[in-house]
């Protein structure tokens, strides 16, 4: 597993300057830096299908050090509409996730998109 860290390895980080997206969560999204996108490659430790947000605990290894990221997603209702199901991610799945990182530098982020080990977008049956 490879960690691509915004703080630790700018060369490998994918930074995207984009217009702020008016993301909607159960709280303000100001905690996330929408001007920055970060690509994390890791293994799913846990997929929490819960309200008000679903979460992916992602184990990201970089140079022999493994860190655990908390990646915040939307509510089960929104994800369900977008084609997600509680079993879409399983413990141990190897995924590559694009996220907006926390502004405070902590190991948390908001989910943007992901691809699985087979190179396909997750979920495989997205929004109709």
């Amino acid at each position, binding site marked *: 597993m490879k960690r691509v860290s915004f703080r630790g390895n700018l060369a490998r980080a994918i930074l995207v300057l984009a217009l702020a997206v008016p*993301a*909607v969560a159960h709280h303000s999204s100001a905690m996330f830096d929408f001007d920055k996108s970060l690509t994390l490659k890791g293994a799913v430790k846990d997929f929490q299908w819960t309200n008000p947000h679903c979460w992916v605990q992602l184990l990201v290894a970089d140079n022999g050090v493994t860190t655990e990221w908390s990646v915040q997603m939307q509510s089960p*209702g929104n994800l369900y509409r977008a084609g997600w199901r509680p079993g879409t991610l399983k413990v141990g799945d190897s995924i590559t996730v694009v996220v907006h990182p926390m502004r405070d530098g902590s190991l948390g982020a908001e989910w943007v998109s992901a691809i699985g080990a087979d190179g396909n977008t997750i979920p495989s049956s997205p929004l109709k």
Partner: protein
Amino acid sequence: MNKLLRRHLALLLPVLLLGATSVHADLNSQQRLHAFAALPDWTGFWEQDSVRLGANGISKFKPLMGHPPYNAEWEAKYQAAPGPAAHVICSLGFPAIMDSPYSQFELVVLPEQTLFIPVDFSSTRQIFTDGRAHPPKEDLWPTPIGDSIGHWEGQTLVVDTISRKAGPISVRNELSDQAHFIERIRLVDKNRLEDVMTIEDPIALMRPWQVTLTYRKIKDVDRLIPYECSENDRNPIVNGHFTIAPPKPK
């Protein structure tokens, strides 16, 4: 047939007849069926018109209510209130639930009442159309959704809501518990519903405030999936900012 059996049958017969009668009594009367047939068909799932859901489940949303015409005192309160960063969108209540990214809802229109059931189930509205009045003052206390009664003017549902607990009507805006709401809800076309809401609040507003809310029929859902905040809220506010808490141990 022996004497004992005949005696048992004699005892059972009235019970069976009573049961059969009550089955018939439970059927809808012709009067109720006619009343139902005269109502508009608002079947289906709806959401505030500006909401657009992305493939990652993130919604884009634009509030339609705008800024209330506050009097000077309440405008000053509004200006002094913390910005959206310190607010949490949970258990919205009325009228915030009508203008929210979590305003996916189902309408159940019956002769006696119309039910507005949002994904935030705690904000379900029961709008009585059976001719009742609001409860007397001594039986009324402010609640997050208030007390709603309504009547039909043709195909328009006119709703009168009072006794709403003071609190946010959107992320920042607030109204007092004296607010009085009149809504005129109608189908604009088969996929669009309109709610023209007029709000009077002698405590907070300078004048009546009219807003028009529109809803779009959504076809990518087949059920309401409950939304609430108590199950696994991992965003505590620390020093005025949202943070991410580690997962709870299993």
